[in-house]
């Protein structure tokens, strides 16, 4: 066991998978000599050479679409989009090629690849360095979408993504890169895609979230505990396909749910979770499912007071919990 940060978990996963399988290669901007703008690929160029750690031109269309081609002929590409804000140019290749390759070819061609997307706010990145945009991929069947919240999951989910046979959008939250450390096993491990994590048991309310918001939810849960409110905390980890069972079971038990999402509220992932809870476990609900989400404005503004207002935090979550507890 050794103390590992979230970003180290990512680097280790890449390193170990490249070591294990020579079909794995990396492509992205500044991932080579620079080791990535956040240093997630540090040391890998030296170790694996420029054929397997490719410093790409500023070509997000190609980074995604070229990886699709490489996957089709038998490689296991791990592409990097430097900031989720810059995934918009890749949409065409992600939606029309990557997500639909298996389907449109009648299963002849597959697309086992991973796109790592550095995302998220709370780091003073402003409008164009804080986006996530996970809801676009969440609404595209054919894609797998994950977002780890812990170093263990960062490492284990990335390994599963790389080893799997499906195209994966792997969101890594930049606020988490160096914030938390965790003891990780020395031996090889993976985290299964499609399974959420029950981080804390509770009986009064279910908190559902992922990424940075899992931590905000846990902070809220610990604070609420002191006030006698027992919150169950679920970290979704995989956004698509999501773990319906764990969430429904929890809501059946607590009869209340607060869903927490960093991205803007309208049309976000938590709308689906809420709608599905209503559809599936309506009779168990003692109060309306509540959402605590980013503001419905174009993206996270730069100046600190505006960023603060935009983002959900423990305090806002606790308030929402109390609202529905008192319902």
């Amino acid at each position: 066991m050794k103390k590992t940060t979230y970003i180290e978990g990512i680097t280790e996963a890449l390193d170990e998978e490249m070591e294990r399988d020579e079909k794995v290669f990396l492509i992205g901007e500044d991932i080579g000599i620079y080791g990535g703008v956040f240093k997630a690929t540090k040391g890998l160029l030296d170790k694996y050479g420029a054929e397997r750690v490719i410093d790409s031109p500023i070509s997000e269309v190609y980074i995604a679409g070229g990886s699709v081609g490489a996957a089709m002929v038998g490689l296991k590409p791990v592409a990097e989009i430097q900031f989720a804000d810059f995934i918009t140019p890749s949409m065409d290749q992600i939606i029309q090629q990557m997500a639909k390759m298996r389907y449109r070819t009648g299963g002849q061609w597959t697309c086992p690849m991973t796109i790592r997307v550095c995302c998220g706010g709370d780091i003073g990145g402003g409008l164009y360095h804080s986006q996530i945009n996970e809801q676009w991929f969440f609404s595209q069947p054919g894609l797998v979408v994950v977002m780890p919240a812990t170093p263990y999951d960062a490492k284990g989910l990335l390994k599963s993504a790389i080893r799997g046979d499906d195209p994966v959008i792997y969101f890594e939250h930049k606020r988490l890169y160096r914030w938390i450390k965790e003891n990780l096993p020395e031996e090889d491990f993976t985290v299964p895609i499609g399974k959420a994590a029950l981080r804390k048991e509770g009986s009064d309310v279910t908190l559902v979230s992922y990424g940075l918001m899992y931590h905000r939810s846990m902070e809220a849960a610990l604070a609420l505990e002191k006030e006698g409110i027992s919150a169950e905390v679920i970290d979704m980890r995989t956004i698509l396909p999501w773990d319906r069972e764990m969430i429904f079971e929890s809501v059946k038990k607590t009869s209340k749910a607060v869903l927490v999402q960093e991205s803007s509220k309208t049309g976000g992932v938590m709308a689906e979770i809420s709608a599905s809870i209503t559809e599936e476990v309506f009779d168990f609900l003692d109060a309306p499912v509540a959402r605590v989400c980013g503001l419905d404005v174009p993206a996270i503004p730069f100046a600190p007071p505006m960023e603060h207002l935009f983002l959900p935090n423990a305090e806002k979550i606790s308030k929402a919990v109390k609202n529905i507890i008192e319902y």
Partner: protein
Amino acid sequence: MPINKKKTVDSKANQISLPKKTMLGLFDNLLKTRLLDERFRKLYRQGRFAGTYFSAVGQEATTVGPTYGLRDEDIIAPSHREIGANVTKGVPLDKIIAQVYARESSPDKGKSHPCHYGWKAKGVITPSSTLAGQTVVGTGCAMGFKIMKKDNVVLAFFGEGSTSRGGWHEALNYAGIHNLPIVYICQNNLWAESVPSTLQAGIEDFSDRAKAYGFPGITIDGNNVFTVHKTASEAISKARKGEGPTLIECKTYRWYGHSEIDPADYRTQEELEEWKRKDPLQIAEKILMDLKILTTTKREALVEQINQEIDEAIESVEKDAYAAPEEAYIDVYSEQFPVKRVDW
């Protein structure tokens, strides 16, 4: 706006020396493509299959020429008008026909769209409809071959209109940096649906686009299958040896509308007639007859044989059914993630 003076590309085919077998093979595929294509048009008018149909009649040499002689492992990254590449790469006729008919027996199980042919066993990627989409993906295949140190090549096909797309630029730029084993074939048929090539780019020869990427761009007569084959083969062997990509612009023309529902009244009758006189099939035929490689009798026999093959394949495909509706749930993901079915 620069005027696209129709520069006549001289056909030096008579001087082109190719093995007799190659010349006959090219002709055979050209003829087969033509006959199948005209047949599809007829079947479409008869309402025998749904959707639409994109004819490539008039420009078959641009796809037959480069594809002839490729290995099974070489990849074809097509768009919507590459029936000739499929025929020449050896995709069985019944697979091609089943694709157009969207039958369960189609390689894509009827999921895609007519003319989106593809068959993995012969290295043809079932395309999306997003123009130049497969140019990007195909460049990625070439990147894969380079990384794996395999000496396979990729042929990417697209119309001149598709070169206006950003992804096209990113792909060729990448191929130029890394000297990828890929040959780009631009079928400049002067029109993108109703938009003339003068409104696609401020240049006359689309091969000039290669100057932005640091690899050769060549403009040739796209209606002489022997010229096309020779030029493409040279580029392909260069690519196979790791000497990088080539962009080949084939000047050509489509005889019919963009698809069968397009009357193509945006262009003049004269333009059409002029190009019909440059029919790639007749050009090839004349050359072969001049060289005494082909006779009218032999040609007739060939036509008959191909038509019979087509008849049989159609008969068999028309007996095939559509896939069951539940096929819609299949091949979304690997088996790991089955799709939840709706109860309706």
